């Protein structure tokens, strides 16, 4: 035998391969048995616990803080927002004890569309009365649903919808800025050809408000979008689709070629819904965040999750399962709410600090839990001793 084994090690080895007993085995040669003091004590004191202390280190590799980015400008900073939102600044994974979370780690923007849109029933009920007016819609999400920000989607500019002009759409931007004083995200219709023009105009009419312009992406004229964001003093959303290298490349181009300053970039590496690619989205964001923390200066930016994509999942909106083999799916009102929140939880723990959401209940649940994880809610304490018999069921 090349290695000396203690008896305990032999037993451990056998246990590992689920050998419970050896038959017909004899030990030959000298057997040295060292009995150390602690074993002696143990024999004497089998009725006493072996007091131990638990300790664990912090992660040394996390050397680099995520950039701090401020969205929204108050009058003191040349805008008209009632407050600004700053995210980033942390030097650890979300809610980890290795470093303090410097800024709010979960800021929720609720979606507002500039024209009526088809929505899942459980979302629609919250907005039915305001769908015709983006200003009223914005007011409602702020006053009733306590959105930290709003995300205004200029979908009317989509050639397949109303094909509204950039100037028509920018009128809505002005109206919404008047209607609410929270910071806003301005998003195009997702039409790569038209968005740069629409966003340029929207950036112009909101000059100085430090909005988040969504988005620059590899498939649109991101140079033009970036130039508009720079010129009118906004923050830029850098959007790629589930690919860390594409994200890195786009960020690099925005910084190096388009002159976007580091404190004005937010990333959206794409959120896929729970059950529909969330595993990719989660690991992609987690890898991006870990790369940023360990010193990749092309990836250490705050990150946004479009958690409202959860509503693409049929489990979120469908009234019941189309498959008769499935167990009952229950009430879709509850299912959808949890689906969007759960999608948000995964991204919140992976490294996102900004969220676009739709269901007020989901937004509330995500904020409540993340605020607890951030340590900012202190309720009554729960006593877990004898919890088994103390449930209120």
């Amino acid at each position: 035998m090349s290695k000396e084994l203690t008896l305990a090690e032999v037993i451990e080895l056998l246990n590992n391969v689920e050998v419970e007993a050896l038959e017909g085995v004899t030990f030959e040669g000298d057997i040295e048995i060292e009995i150390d003091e602690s074993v002696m004590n143990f024999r004497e004191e089998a009725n006493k616990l072996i007091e131990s202390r638990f300790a664990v280190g912090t992660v040394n590799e996390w050397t680099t803080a995520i950039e701090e980015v401020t969205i929204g400008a108050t009058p003191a900073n040349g805008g008209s927002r009632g407050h600004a939102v700053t995210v980033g600044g942390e030097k650890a994974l979300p809610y980890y004890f290795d470093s303090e979370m410097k800024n709010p780690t979960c800021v929720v923007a609720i979606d507002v569309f500039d024209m009526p849109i088809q929505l899942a029933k459980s979302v629609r009920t919250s907005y039915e009365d305001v769908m015709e007016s983006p200003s009223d819609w914005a007011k409602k999400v702020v006053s009733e649903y306590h959105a930290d920000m709003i995300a205004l989607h200029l979908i009317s500019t989509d050639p397949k919808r109303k094909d509204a002009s950039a100037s028509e759409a920018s009128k809505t931007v002005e109206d919404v800025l008047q209607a609410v004083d929270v910071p806003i995200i301005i998003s195009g219709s997702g039409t790569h050809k038209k968005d740069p023009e629409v966003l340029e105009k929207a950036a112009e009419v909101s000059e100085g408000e430090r909005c988040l312009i969504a988005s620059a992406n590899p498939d649109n004229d991101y140079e033009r979008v970036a130039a508009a964001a720079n010129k009118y003093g906004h923050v830029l959303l850098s959007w790629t689709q589930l690919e860390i290298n594409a994200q890195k490349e786009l960020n690099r181009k925005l910084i190096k070629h388009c002159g976007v300053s580091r404190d004005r970039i937010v990333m959206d590496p794409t959120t896929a819904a729970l059950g529909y690619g969330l595993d990719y989205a989660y690991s992609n964001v987690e890898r991006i965040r870990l790369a940023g923390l360990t010193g990749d200066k092309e990836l250490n930016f705050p990150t946004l999750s479009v958690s409202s994509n959860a509503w693409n999942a049929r489990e979120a909106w469908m009234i019941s399962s189309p498959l008769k083999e499935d167990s009952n799916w229950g009430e879709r009102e509850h299912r959808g709410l949890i689906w969007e929140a759960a999608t948000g939880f995964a991204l919140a723990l992976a490294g996102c600090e900004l969220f676009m959401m739709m269901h007020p209940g989901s937004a509330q649940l995500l904020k409540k839990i993340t605020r607890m994880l951030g340590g900012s809610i202190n309720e009554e304490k729960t006593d877990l001793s004898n919890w088994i018999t103390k449930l209120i069921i």
Partner: protein
Amino acid sequence: MKLNSPLQVYKYLPKINCGKCGEKTCMAFASRLVDRSKKIEDCQILLQDKEKFLQLAELLAPEIREITAGVGDRKVRIGGDDVLHRHQLTFFNPTVLAYDVWDTMEEVALIERVKKISEFKKFYVGHYLKLDMIAVRSTGESAAKFKSCVEKVTEVSTLPVMLCSFDPTVLKAGLEVCADKKPVLYAATKDNWEQVSKLALEYHVPVVLFSEGDLDSLKTLAVSFNRLGINDIILDPGTYPEGAQLKSTFENFIKLRRAGIKESQKEIAYPIMAAPITAWMIDNDPTPTSYLEAALASIFMIKYADIMLLHSIEPHALLSEVYMRETMYTDPRTPLKVDSGVYKIGNPTKDSPVITTSNFALTYYTVESDLSSGRIDCYLASVNTDGIGVEAAVAGRQFTAAKIKETFDEAGFDFKEKTSHNTIILPGLAARLQGDLEDVMGIKVLIGPVDSNQIPGWMDKNWL
């Protein structure tokens, strides 16, 4: 595991390339051992060399101990992880989901609940997602009551059980009727550890160690149990359902797993248990409490719970729980796609429709199951989109007219010969490819619905 390159593992193998393990070479087998897709027991030569076998077994053992509970088909493995982040390898052994019943339930209600838990299933990417375990909770009335409840549960269901009580006499009563089914004991504490450790030893069952938010005493228990020869241990650091206590719970989970994996602190490298069920200590309003419980389940599924104790069996909670578990435990090394090609659904004839979709497994299986359950005989073409869903693949040009043509060409599918209608149906989300596809394939192109669940209705209107 202590070895992480195939070359290191190769040194311990027979190096004769006998192929009995199913791999062509010992080196290939070594790589499979490192990525944990094969077990050393698969090497018959090594099995004969006990010393080397045990040595390698020790070196390949996962950082977090893997334990089993239950017997038969529904036996579960708990723990066994090697990494802190799933992209670094994969997470092993999906979080075991245990749902409670309690010993004061009326028999009818008890049986109904046990059946619901045991029979729950949700179709997902070619298989069914299910629940794993039934936790029988003592309400403290009597050991006899607990015993008969456990007896009933194990009579009705083959799922593994967890026996929950802090009273050793109650646990013993439960063990007496189900020890052969390898239940999990919940729980040993600083107060009852002596008796519970004896039960774990006597009945050879895994045991949960519980300490309310205090990792020093949790480690004290783990070290003490280990010294007594008990290694099938699960750690419950206490799950506080709200407030700053929730933050400390979250931190405890991270600390334990970091100590086990990053720092190789063997004495604490055991599976961890979360108990979102404690949400029901602070409220019992069913809907908001089920939301809170499901939220806690999400959080601890993502951060390291290997086994989880829950209460609500409302479908909205169950669905999100089994989906989140799938999200975290899907192997990121395996692309989620099916082979591209043209598949028969049911018994298609010349008049049957030809439907297209992407080769993203999730999309493909969703469409396939909608067609099957709608009893639609047809051809379903899975186009090679590199495993990307239809909408994204249209935007990213992985789903194009040329790609669709390629799929049919490679499958040798001739529309003139196989169909009487020379027509193809595109997913609603790929409507913009219609013109292109007509040009490229010279066939009639119809635009189907956006969601495949609407195909049966769409067929009634558009397909005669």
